[in-house]
């Protein structure tokens, strides 16, 4: 093989990987900018589109922008509640779909898939149409946002837990029962620990979907302001740099949880 051929082969072997990594870089540039801008001191000029001076003050005083921390707290409250309800209802449904036969199972599978394939603007306006038609048009707020969030999180929970359940070896449960464990004990000592990483991943996904949602929330929120709605509101006037602090913190926490879940799953598989 000549050197040229060898070089050609090496490029062929690594070109795809290099291009893939470039795409990856493209995906991370905006996040890097968010992190960088969280240290930006723009107190001397109104220009929020350039890095002026380095400062710790955005991190030291994250709640300085009016109303931002209230909005963050509200988003966390809605996110936790919606996650709790969606994770429980969704996990039950996933068990039904994987472990039980019932009339309408394939119809249920289709209905579960639809919210993931509908544009948010259509789901949001449908829900608003329902609330207005049933006389809740003047009472939009925390409750209507919560209802909407559970609705769109459910499908993602079901799909995630289903994937984990499908990959589970039913023989393990059979073995527990052969060793005289009751159905109840089998569930809590065998099934649940095995499914847990899937449930945890689903909960994490739900929370971030809920915390991040803007389009559906904006239509059904009335006067209630969530964090994304706060960001939208200030986006026209120029965003306070503290918004980037919240973005960075969110990113770091969820990366920590995702990588932790990944390592925990891997350790269990290896053991």
């Amino acid at each position, binding site marked *: 093989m000549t050197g040229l051929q060898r070089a050609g082969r090496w490029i062929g072997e690594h070109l795809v990987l290099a291009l893939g990594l470039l795409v990856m870089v*493209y995906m991370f540039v905006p*996040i890097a900018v968010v992190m960088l801008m969280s240290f930006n001191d723009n107190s001397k000029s109104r220009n929020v589109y350039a890095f002026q001076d380095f400062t710790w003050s955005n991190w030291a005083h994250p709640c300085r922008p009016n109303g931002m921390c209230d909005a963050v707290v509200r988003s966390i409250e809605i996110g936790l509640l919606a996650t709790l309800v969606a994770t429980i209802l969704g996990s039950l449904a996933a068990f*039904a779909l994987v472990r039980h036969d019932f009339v309408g199972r394939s119809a249920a599978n289709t209905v579960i898939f639809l919210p993931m394939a509908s544009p948010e603007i259509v789901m949001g306006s449908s829900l608003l149409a329902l609330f207005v038609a049933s006389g809740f048009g003047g009472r939009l707020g925390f409750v209507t946002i919560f209802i909407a969030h559970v609705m769109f999180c459910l499908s993602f929970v079901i799909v995630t837990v289903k994937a984990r359940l499908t990959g589970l070896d039913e023989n393990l449960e059979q073995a527990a029962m052969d060793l005289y464990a009751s159905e109840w004990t089998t569930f809590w000592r065998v099934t649940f620990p095995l499914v847990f990483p899937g449930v945890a991943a689903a909960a994490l996904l739900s929370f971030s979907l809920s915390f991040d949602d803007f*389009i559906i929330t904006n239509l059904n929120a009335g006067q209630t302001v969530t964090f994304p709605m706060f*960001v939208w509101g200030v986006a026209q006037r120029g965003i306070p740099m503290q918004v980037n602090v*919240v973005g960075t913190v969110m990113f770091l926490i969820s*990366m920590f949880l995702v990588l932790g879940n990944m390592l925990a799953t891997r350790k269990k598989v290896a053991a």
Partner: protein
Amino acid sequence: MRRGRFTGYWLMLPAALWLALFFVIPFYSLLATSLYDPEGSVLTGYDVTYHFANFVDALDDFWEPLLRSLWYAAVATAICLVLGYVLAYAIAFKAGRWSSLLLVLVIAPFFTSFLIRTLSWKLILADDGFVVDTLQFLHVLGDDSRLLATPVAVIAGLVYNFLPFMVLPLYASLEKIDGRLIEAAGDLYASPSRGFLKVTLPLSKPGVIAGTLLTFIPAAGDYINASLLGSPNQRMVGNVIQNLFTSTGDYAAAGALSVILMAIIVAMVMVYIRTAGTEELV
């Protein structure tokens, strides 16, 4: 574990009820809204008068943003397909033991707010920013031209925001491919590119279909990119619907436009289900 004839129903019931009440029934409300008397207002109330002309009026007034949405979403989906395929292929076949870490990194952007990331693009593409300066230096862009408030910026934003929706299904179908099939193509003297075109690409078709739908659908309904990165000249159908509902209070037109958008998308999903079947996508 399949004990109890009714256990399945009981487990399914709460989620099914929630989706029926707050996902299925709202579509009927939306349909009713689209047939409201267009003279109604928030103050006087709305009556369902089967005013089918709402659809004609909505198309007449807003065909431009509607077509623009479909066009931008199609271009963004095509670009996502190319970028996403490269990335998914690299993760599935070239990354070795790093593949699960890379996969986590693909979904990582989901965990920073969509709005904050889009605002970050606004900063990257800003008039005196690095990207515009470089392109002007290279004479790709004229000295006075800009990226913000152009279709390029909006489509770039759409590509960026929906790329993970393309990569994940593509990876799922690429990863399932039996490597021996690709080797067999090589053993039978197919060049690597021919092997890719005749073996890998056809086998990844379910991922391509799922990925294009999961990218195209949210992109066609999106208005955040058009609002933050574009100008009124790049207004998409989502901007119009949102505006009609929240600012103008013209529920009839907003409802009709939503129904039209949904009808176009349902038609696409039907074609998809015929080609690949629902289970594949989930």
